[in-house]
Structures are given as C-alpha cells and as structure tokens.
C-alpha cells in the first residue's frame, strides 16, 4: 500500500518543483489518501490508518518538494526503509559528512528535527530547515483544509 502510493507520487507530474506547487502536493496527498482508503478499508484501526495517512502526508510532501532537497531525499528514504526491511545492505556512505561537534544544544535539536539533518553543515542545515518548514506549513494547511471540508459536508 505504501509503496504504491510512493510510486504514484513519483510517476506523476513530478518535476523538481518547489513547494509552491501546492496543487501538486494536494493532488498527491489526495491520491495517497485514496490509496490508503482503498487498502482494505482502512486497515481495521484508526490509529493504524492514522499512521498510514501520516506517512502518506510526509511522502507527498517530500515528493513534491523535489529531489533536489536533501531533506526530501532523506525523508523519502526513511519512509521507504521502514516496511520491515530486516537485512540492510551495508551502505557505502551513510554519513557522508559528519559535522563537527554538536555542542550546541539547539543545533543538535534542529538536526534531529529536520530529516537528513545529521550530515549537513550548519549553514546547509539552516537552509534545509527553512525549506522544510515551508513545506511542512503547506502540508499542514492542506490537511487542515481537507479535514475542514470533510467535516463540513
């Protein structure tokens, strides 16, 4: 179910679009939602469905942000890696560029928040964080809209 939604999001009109393509994000998300719904009518429990929806939300966000963003790549990687991959191929380079130190409490916290933030320099981290914040805000607004219109009718 999840793989299918990811494939769909990838095969769509995805170009390295900025997160201004809100319609694209919404498209993807609604598609993913429908997929989630189709998969066995919600997989029994709302919490399970909620997790699936959350994953779909992040996947859509990352997919629409474009592959040029480090955080979107890391996010997609993290999402796809989850489904029970027991044996992990030893990757050649996991932590590419380990940033020096980590003494700044705030910086460490930011690194943990932003996906893929462990490998970046501080400068890049800020940049990715900004983009991530923008995408997140858009995603939240989109979901809010959906919920509102769904609850309206």
């Amino acid at each position: 179910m999840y793989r299918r939604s990811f494939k769909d999001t990838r095969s769509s009109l995805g170009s390295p679009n900025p997160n201004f393509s809100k319609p694209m994000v919404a498209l993807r998300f609604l598609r993913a939602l429908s997929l989630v719904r189709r998969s066995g009518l919600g997989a029994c429990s709302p919490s399970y469905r909620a997790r699936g929806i959350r994953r779909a939300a992040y996947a859509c966000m990352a997919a629409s942000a474009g592959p040029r963003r480090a955080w979107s790549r890391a996010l997609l990687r993290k999402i796809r890696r989850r489904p029970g991959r027991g044996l992990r191929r030893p990757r050649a380079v996991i932590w590419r560029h380990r940033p020096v130190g980590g003494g700044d409490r705030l910086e460490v916290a930011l690194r943990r928040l932003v996906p893929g933030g462990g490998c970046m320099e501080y400068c890049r981290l800020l940049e990715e964080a900004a983009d991530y914040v923008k995408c997140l805000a858009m995603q939240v607004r989109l979901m809010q809209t959906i919920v509102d219109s769904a609850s309206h009718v």
Partner: protein
Amino acid sequence: MNENKFVLNSHHDGGEWQFNTPAMSMVPLLPNAPSLAGGLMNQITRSSYLSTPMVEVFSPGQWNHHPTSSPNMALGESNFASTSSINSIPVGKPVAISPRGMLVSTEPRIFPTSLPHFPVDSAFVERAARFSCFGSGNFSGINFFGSSPAMAPSNNEGIGDQVQKDELLQVDHESFNGSTMKNQGDQNSQIGNGESRVVIFPEDGLEGNTGSTDAALNSSSSDRGVNKRRKTVPDIERDPVQGGRQSSSETTKENIENKQKVEQINSKQTEKNGKDNSEFVKEGYVHVRARRGQATNSHSLAERVRREKISERMKYLQELVPGCSKVTGKAVMLDEIINYVQSLQRQVEFLSMKLAAVNPQLDFGIEGLLAKNLLRAHGSSSSATGFSPEMIYPQAYPSQHNLVHTGISAMASHSDTFRRAISTQSTASGYKESPLQVQPMHIPWNEELITQMAYGANPSNPQNMDSKADDFAI
C-alpha cells in the same frame, strides 16, 4: 493568482486556504525580499538599478523551478554583489569585465548573454542553484581588507558601522562564533591540506567544502586554466584603479593563486576603507576582501563569509517562522524555529488522526470517482471554454474553470494512466504550457474534489463526469 475564482459559502475555509496559501507562500518570500533588500539598500546606497535585482534575488523559491535558470540566479546575485561593490568604488572598469562572463553590468539580469562564458557543467549548475537560494549576493565578500591583524568579534561591529556601503548583514557574530568556528576549523583544515580552494564560496559552502570536494575539484581542475585566464583580466582591470595596491588589496581566492595571495594579504594592509572589489567568479568562487580593521587572515575571512551566510539563512528562517520578526538573538531564534517545527509535526500527526477518523465517510465518493475515471483514462483535450455549464453542484460553482478543475483533479488524482497521459502530453507540448494551464485551474480544485467526494452518491455525477471527461483540457 486567481483567488477570485474561489467559492465562498460552505467552503469558506477551503477557499481561505487556497487563498491564503498562494499569498502566504509568497509572503515568506516577498517580505523576505524587501526586508533583505531594505537591509541591503541601507548599506548599498548607490545604484538605483540594484533594487530590482535585489528583489528578484531574494526570492529563494524561484531557483527550484528551472535548473537552467539557476545559473542565472547565481549570476544575478553575482551581478548584484559585484555591482554593489562596484558602486562603492567609482570604477568603470568592472563593466569591462563583463565580457569575461562576470555579470558586472548595469543591467540587472543579462544572464543569457553572459551565460555562455561560464563553464556550466552540471556540478556548477547544481552549486549555482544552491548558491542562488539565499540571496547570496551578500556573500560576495563584502569584506574589506582589514588593517588590524586582530580578528576579534568586536572588530566586526566596528567595521560594520564603518562599512555601510558594503556591509550587508549586521549580525552579532559572537553567538555564531562557536558554531561557525568548528565548521570553519573543519573547512580550513581541509583547505590547508593542499586543496586548491581557500575560500568558501557560497556554492561550496552550501554543499560543504568537505562534501563537494569531488565535484568541485573536478570542475576546478577543469577550469583551472580558465580561472587563471580570468583572474588575470580582473587584475589587469583593477590595476589602473588601484595602482600598486592591486596585488595586495585583493584577496581573490582562486585555485592556484590562493595561497600566494594569502601570503600577500597577510603581509600587507590596505588603507582603502570602505572599498571592496568582490567579484563573483565563474564557478562560484567568492572573492573575499577583508574589511578595514579586520584580520586579513584567510581563515578569518572565510569565517566571516560563513558567518554572513549563516546569518542570512537565519534571517530567512525568521521570515518563515511566524512571530519571529521581533526576536533578536540566534539562540532565541533557533529555539523558536525548533518549537515551530515541532508544533508543525505535531499538527501533522493530529490532522492525520483526524483524517483517519473522518475518512470512512468519504469512501463512496472516491470509489465512484475512481471507477468512472479509470474507465476514461485519457481525457480528450479540448478547451475549457467548451465546458458544459450544467454541472450540478449544490454549491453552484459559477465558473467553468471550477468544473475543469474538478475534472482534472479527479481524473488526475485517481488514474495512473491518465497521469501518464498528462505527463506525456505535457512533455510533448512543452512543460511550460501545461502547468500554466493546470496550476491556476488547480487552485480552487480542492474544494470541488472534496465536495465530489462528499456528494459521491449524487446521481448527477455520472453525467458530470462524462461531460468533464470530454471537455477536459490539458
């Protein structure tokens, strides 16, 4: 955009969302531009033609669009920065440098003419894209050639006040010294290890000097000859201007001459105040000049560039996060950002739970739509104007565009084959047109789709879908 197309009554919030989001998505950028531009213009008082490039420069979202235009952005910033620097120096020479490919011209954007001069390889494009993201015109090293060897943070503020023309960011560097120092140390150690690059240019800074070594080295090695050639020209250009100070006054950091220059810079000091000749190099090497009264150590210069970059990013973040414009100080700002990100993530979780609870009600509409859309996967391309206005919706959407939007959205969202048809069509007909057509129509689509989902059992739907499918325009 087309907010006027929005429906109002029952989907007021949705409309609000769509209304807001284009504006709000723009809001981080546009205020960003004026604020940064304002800050910049405060210092760079010279030219009036800088205003437009600055506004364009500081819209970071644009750079994602077209990779081809990203070098333009980089060049734009370089243009901006170099012109700013040029303004501080009453020199007409930099204009002559433009044939070399450096956008030092009065025109804000003359990228197409100067692009061919650049060795635009993929690595450069990528770096330029990243570089152009953050108004990197500031990074053009508006650093002055310092006279005092001491590199104390206190000097920065003093210099900052002094150097109004070219000082772009009045940021307290102390709080960042800790974090930047370690990064700096990392980079500088790397730099000292025989790497040809001494300075941190914004492109490489974005990737990290450590990280982009391969790409950068490849490009740098390939462009070394070109670099040399190019470097000589600016030097020659500047010679009459600066007289004998040419060699010492610049801390142009390019591939091979870097180390030699560093020694020169360290040994000499200029009495030039308030002048910098920062030029943007073709591959994104930043010519950094030490500010007056500041250390001319290559390390300190690089650190300063880095600090300014970081402060630039922080400012951008400040624009993004609501309610952070009044906050001063990096720590508080970071704290706010972290809180905001955490709250957003919590909101996503909460909304997903809500959606999961709400979803079963929307099942019927989706299934019906899916079935119908999958039957006719390929919508014929016809104009939206030919749309039959007899869409029967309780909300009575007035504009035909809405119907098209719904059709588009419904079909596009529920059919893989249709998507591929769209993509193939779009690629065939040029991607420019389709998004332009699709996107403005997509704006109110959210509500329609949801109402469709809600009114899935509407008997009028099938014929609506038929008409929509026939009149679907791509």
